[in-house]
């Protein structure tokens, strides 16, 4: 086992797949010679060649559209969109084309495209380097949507995404690239090397899509979270001393209803956490699912802890970020309810 941070784990996933499968190609802005602005593709072009790891023109619509064309012609493209905040010029190609190709051609055509993109805040990136737009993709039928919370899952989920025959939008919480950030920016950064999930096999392995994971068992309340918020929730749970069960959703679509609802039915209480804005956010889907499946087991109204319904403000990052204090408050509130 090697120690890897999330960037290295993602790099390793692409490296393994480029070596194993000649159909795999990696493309995106600055991903080739330079190795990506977050270094996720560092060294891949040197190792696998200029025809397998491509720098592209600056055109997200072009990147996704050509990836679709490549996918239709037998390749397995892994496209990087430099920031999730810049995915919108490619949105039409995702929604109208990539997501519906299999359906509209009754299975005659499909494109196994994986779109990787860094998301989330906490790096002082302001409104154009901090967004978490997962909900506008989970609302589209015909794509899978993934967000890992640690290096081990990141590599295994990315390999599953590339190996699968369906399109995947793969969100990478950039605040987790270097370590398991617990929501407290005043504490010194913790590296992944000190975390069990920073232990990553060098070779091929998979973590299946569509499976959530209980990362902390507990009996009092279920916390449903993904990405950075898994670690923030863990810290909040520690701080409150409440015996919460934390479920890392991992794949937002298709959703592992079983794991989530088994937990909530057991604990009878639920807090849903995400960094994205609240209104029509992915949390609404989780809450609705819990209500449908666990209503008769619920002891308290389900709570949502999310980013506010504003763009991500540069100066007020930590007032915006749904940190430990807000999660702890929600935990106490669901515990207090009769």
């Amino acid at each position, binding site marked *: 086992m090697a120690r890897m941070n999330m960037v290295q784990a993602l790099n390793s996933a692409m490296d393994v797949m480029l070596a194993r499968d000649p159909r795999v190609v990696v493309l995106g802005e600055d991903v080739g010679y330079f190795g990506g602005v977050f270094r996720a593709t560092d060294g891949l072009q040197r190792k696998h060649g200029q025809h397998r790891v491509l720098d592209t023109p*600056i055109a997200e619509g072009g990147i996704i559209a050509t990836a679709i064309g490549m996918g239709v012609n037998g390749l397995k493209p892994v496209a990087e969109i430099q920031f999730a905040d810049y995915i919108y010029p490619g949105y039409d190609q995702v929604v109208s084309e990539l997501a519906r190709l299999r359906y509209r051609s009754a299975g005659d055509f499909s494109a196994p495209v994986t779109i990787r993109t860094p998301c989330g805040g906490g790096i002082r990136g302001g409104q154009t380097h901090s967004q978490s737009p997962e909900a506008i993709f989970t609302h589209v039928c015909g794509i899978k949507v993934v967000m890992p919370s640690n290096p081990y899952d990141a590599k295994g989920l990315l390999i599953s995404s590339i190996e699968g025959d369906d399109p995947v939008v793969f969100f990478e919480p950039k605040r987790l690239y270097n370590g398991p950030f617990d929501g407290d920016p005043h504490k010194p950064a913790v590296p992944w090397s000190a975390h069990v999930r920073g232990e990553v096999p060098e070779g091929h392995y998979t973590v299946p899509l569509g499976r959530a994971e209980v990362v902390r068992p507990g009996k009092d309340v279920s916390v449903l979270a993904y990405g950075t918020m898994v670690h923030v929730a863990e810290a909040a749970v520690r701080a409150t001393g409440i015996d919460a069960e934390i479920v890392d959703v991992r794949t937002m679509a298709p959703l592992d209803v079983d794991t989530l609802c088994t937990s909530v039915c057991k604990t009878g209480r639920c807090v849903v956490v995400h960094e994205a804005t609240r209104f029509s956010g992915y949390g609404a889907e989780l809450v609705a699912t819990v209500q449908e499946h666990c209503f008769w087991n619920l002891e308290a109204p389900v709570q949502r802890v999310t980013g*506010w319904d504003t763009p991500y403000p540069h100066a007020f990052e930590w007032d915006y970020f749904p940190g430990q204090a807000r999660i702890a408050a929600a935990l106490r509130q669901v515990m207090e309810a009769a």
Partner: protein
Amino acid sequence: MTPRSRLHVPEPPARPGQEPDFSYVQISPAGATPRPDVTATAREIEPLALGMVRVLDEEQRAVGPWNPHLEPGELQVGLRHMLLTRLFDDRMQKIQRQGRISFYIKSTGEEAVAVAAGMALQPTDMLFPSYRQQGLQVLRGRNLVDLMCQCLSNTHDMCKGRQMPIMYHWGSGNIFSISGNLATQFPQAVGWAMAAAIKGEDRIAASWIGEGSSAEADFHYAMTFAAVYQAPVILNLVNNQWAISTFQGFAGGEHKTFAQRGPGYGIPGIRVDGNDFLAVYAVTQWAAQRARQSGGPTLIEHVTYRAAAHSTSDDPARYRPKEEWRAWPLGDPVTRLKQHLIALGEWSEERHAQLEKELEAHVTACWKEAESYGTLTGGPALDPLTMFEDVLKEMPPNLKEQQRELRALREAEGTGRATTPSSSAAGKG
């Protein structure tokens, strides 16, 4: 062997450790490119897309039909704006390195593209820049304190703490809000110009886009709408050879000049020496006059070089020769204008050094004032509760509720001020 297709992957002429090589940059001699009448047809103007308008010759004398014959006083003003822009950039970069602002982008080596072009326009003309034309703010007389306060996200920040550094806006100065999303401003400028024409105004619009960003579909929208409606707009494409780590070949520059895209849409395309203050001024003046006379849009390719890193998050030594900028064949815009003025007998090294000192002192004084309105770590701070304002004109109920929630949370925590640790990650655009 049976013929088969093979993928072409553009490669820059030199990578780290190699000799810089700019032999691919086609350069015309100063004064050699003819100046058509502003009423000429797009077809008559076509050759300008291949050549290069240049006014300053090797001795930095102004020659040829494009010489705008500016008064020495105007040239001195131009020099002052370019120098101030450069010193401001240098200072802000240093300040970022000290961790006192989170991010910065310099325009070093490209000052003429903003300053000369802006000076050739009317103050009432509307500008839609990218993030690398701070020279426009400087030449329109923006108080540097305002720009610094924006970079500091402090109590005098025009963006109220919502934007990363350099994302300025200036409504009353007719400079649009800078977007972090590339290329979006280009077609918006066309729409603004269409509105001016609809309203029958004399104002025109100008926009700037990087050569790398010209790959975005927005570039095509801008060109098509501008051509269809003959919008009174100047579309500046800043070809500084690099887009973060990818050279201009990745934007299609290997096969044609960027200016040549103009004729493809039926729009005049002019390729200009972007480091030649007089040439940039002259082509802008030409395009502005044409636009004001219902002659429609012009695409101007400014051939220049991004002498600095892409941003403070970038390290160009990873992808281009360290000393590449020294080999850039079109020199430095500040030095060239300075030499020109000296050749005219209207400037001297002593006066230049004097001016530099004066402007340095000005920048220092501005920074001092800016800091007094708050820094990332101390002094007066913006109220975080203002983050809920301006989402909509009137605050909707959900935001009122969230504002209340944050207020209560802050009171419970007894938070006096928002402390703001600096960033950890690289890579910001």
